[in-house]
């Protein structure tokens, strides 16, 4: 007779998890409802929906005309002309515009109108930055040609030629990028993966508290097994649930929302490390909390606050610098950075070594503390 405590504990705990209807709702249904709604709110499929932008400009001024032309050629933007800066401000405030741009002839400072808290504003800003940058480059190149002794006509000719070449290059690169253009879901899918994996791990710790309360842990220790095996079996059970939650979100978001997660190895390592941290947190809750009702009461609020700080509920830029910095004390921010980096086409595990290292360190610390606490609180005092 060879005892199989790990198999026994993992299978029994998974069976219990599957019987928990409320728990399964939060694991199987809730993440996708959230991803769907938040993803749509953050711009959904950006390839279809253009960002509305208004420009106040006098097109008789060549620079202003160039900026307007650049903006109108941007496929991500829907540009309309506005009469006054005030009109633009009002429309931005009402949310009718993602952003507005006021160009004053002769003035080199352009006024950008947007609200601090909108994701589409951020997106529009980056598009405007690119357009203005192109115009600025043309002006700079023309001035350089003139300074080098070319006549105005010659200078214009050189610059137009250079611009045509650069446009060719640009078209080639954006053309290649088109299928993997990030959508609103590209942000919310990883954000909710982290949020739900962590929150649900803390909530399923209730089953562990219940095992302690009804004397199941004690009874299992009376079997011919070692304490460390029971401890490992309980930890492995939580890890399996966390990993299943993550995999479910990755697969379903890929199929339903066409989210590109990037390098499988990199994503696998980051997600596995995050799951280990969630397991540690679950074991801590399982060891410290007295009644099974307390675990679902404590877990989700903690998980949601950490999610807020880590940019799982809204983009971290929105929260401001102080909160963003605090966020880096917790695993969510690091995992979020890693997953967003990995979603870029050429990124791999090598691009997220720092984040992976920090997550591995956190996993060691949290799991270590959790194991010691669980050993003392739940196993020694049987």
């Amino acid at each position: 007779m060879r005892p199989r405590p790990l198999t026994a504990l993992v299978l029994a705990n998974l069976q219990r998890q599957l019987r928990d209807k409320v728990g399964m709702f939060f694991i199987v249904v809730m993440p996708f409802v959230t991803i769907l709604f938040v993803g749509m709110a953050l711009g959904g499929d950006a390839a279809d929906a253009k960002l509305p932008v208004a420009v106040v400009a006098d097109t008789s001024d060549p620079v202003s005309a160039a900026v307007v032309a650049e903006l109108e050629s941007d496929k991500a933007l829907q540009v309309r002309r506005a009469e006054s800066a005030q009109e633009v401000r009002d429309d931005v405030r009402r949310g009718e515009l993602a952003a507005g741009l006021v160009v004053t002839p002769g003035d080199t400072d352009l006024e950008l109108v947007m609200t601090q808290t909108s994701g589409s504003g951020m997106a529009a800003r980056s598009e405007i930055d690119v357009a203005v940058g192109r115009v600025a480059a043309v002006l700079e190149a023309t001035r350089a040609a003139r300074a080098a002794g070319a006549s105005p006509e010659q200078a214009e000719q050189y610059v137009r030629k250079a611009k045509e070449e650069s446009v060719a290059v640009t078209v080639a690169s954006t053309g290649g990028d088109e299928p993997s253009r990030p959508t609103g879901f590209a942000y919310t899918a990883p954000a909710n993966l982290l949020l739900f994996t962590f929150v649900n791990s803390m909530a399923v710790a209730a089953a562990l508290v219940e095992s302690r309360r009804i004397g199941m842990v004690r009874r299992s220790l009376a079997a011919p097994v070692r304490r460390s095996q029971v401890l490992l079996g309980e930890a492995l059970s939580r890890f399996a649930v966390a990993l299943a939650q993550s995999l479910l979100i990755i697969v379903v978001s890929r199929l339903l929302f066409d989210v590109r997660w990037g390098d499988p190895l990199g994503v696998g390592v980051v997600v596995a490390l995050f799951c280990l941290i969630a397991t540690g947190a679950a074991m801590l809750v399982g060891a410290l909390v007295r009644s099974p009702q307390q675990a679902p009461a404590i877990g989700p609020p903690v998980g949601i606050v950490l999610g807020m700080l880590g940019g799982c509920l809204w983009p971290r830029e929105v929260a401001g610098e102080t909160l963003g910095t605090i966020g880096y004390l917790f695993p969510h921010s690091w995992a979020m950075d890693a997953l967003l980096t990995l979603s870029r086409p050429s990124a791999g595990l090598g691009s997220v070594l720092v984040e992976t290292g920090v997550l591995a360190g956190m996993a060691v610390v949290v799991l270590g503390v959790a194991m010691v606490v669980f050993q003392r609180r739940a196993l020694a005092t049987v």
Partner: protein
Amino acid sequence: MTPALVCERLVKRYGDKTVVDRVGFHIDEGEAYGLLGPNGAGKTTTISMLVGLLRPDEGTVRVGGIDVGEDPVAAKRLIGYVPQEIALYPELTARENLRYFGRLYGLPRRELTSRIGEVLDLVGLTDRGDDKVGTYSGGMKRRTNIAVALLHRPRLLILDEPTVGVDPQSRVAILDRVEALVGEGMSLLYTSHYMEEVERVCTRVGIIDRGRVVADGTKRELVAELGGTDRVELTLDGDVTAAAEKLRAVEGVSESVVTGSSSIRLLVAGGRHLLPALLAAIGDAGAVTGVEVVEPDLEAAFLHLTGSTLRD
């Protein structure tokens, strides 16, 4: 033959408090041993040390010749432990719970299904085996708890209060089952609040009080220690506490305890001859409505040894 269990000078302290104080007894192969004691006497703490859940501060435990401290895994393999609490996952069925424990004890995969069927049959739950344990009555849960302990064919069965919270019908079924197992040669350690269960099932009894084994022997040996002392059960209307106090002062009365809101138990040397003196002693404290003189039995021995009743 190697005894099924030997424990010697077991000590367990929590801070200044010694909960188990030099406890020692042995159970021969095939013998049924009862451990009797009032609440808080140290029964469960002792059992925790016997089954390897708690490390004793002093003393040794050997199960089938194996030292529990030295090789707990091998020793635990020989024990079938039925704890006081219902240690079953309520959201799983009895069969699923048994499968869990079967894996935990390392029963071969091929054998597991048929063995689960056997133990379910043994405790009379074959037709409810696929229902969730959470839907069971107290008695059915207790029976499943016992089935778990029998799964790996242990040599020594340890039952810690196996009939608490059980309906009379299930209680009879459990006792019948335990008796049959002992008849088949299983060694048994049985603790209970119910004297009559221990009297029925066990051939030898240890009495534990305040962490110490105060007596150990067959029922006949324990009762013989009482000599000519009878047990007298009095029923009365009135102030039982005051009445018990007055009765204690009567010469020949060695113990006098309140057993209910209108009942008192006495140990009296030559009980039947002292009855008039007893009734006179109560006086104004109450009106006696019933008197019973009982020949010396285990209940009387227990009172004699511990100065208390089992269920207080």
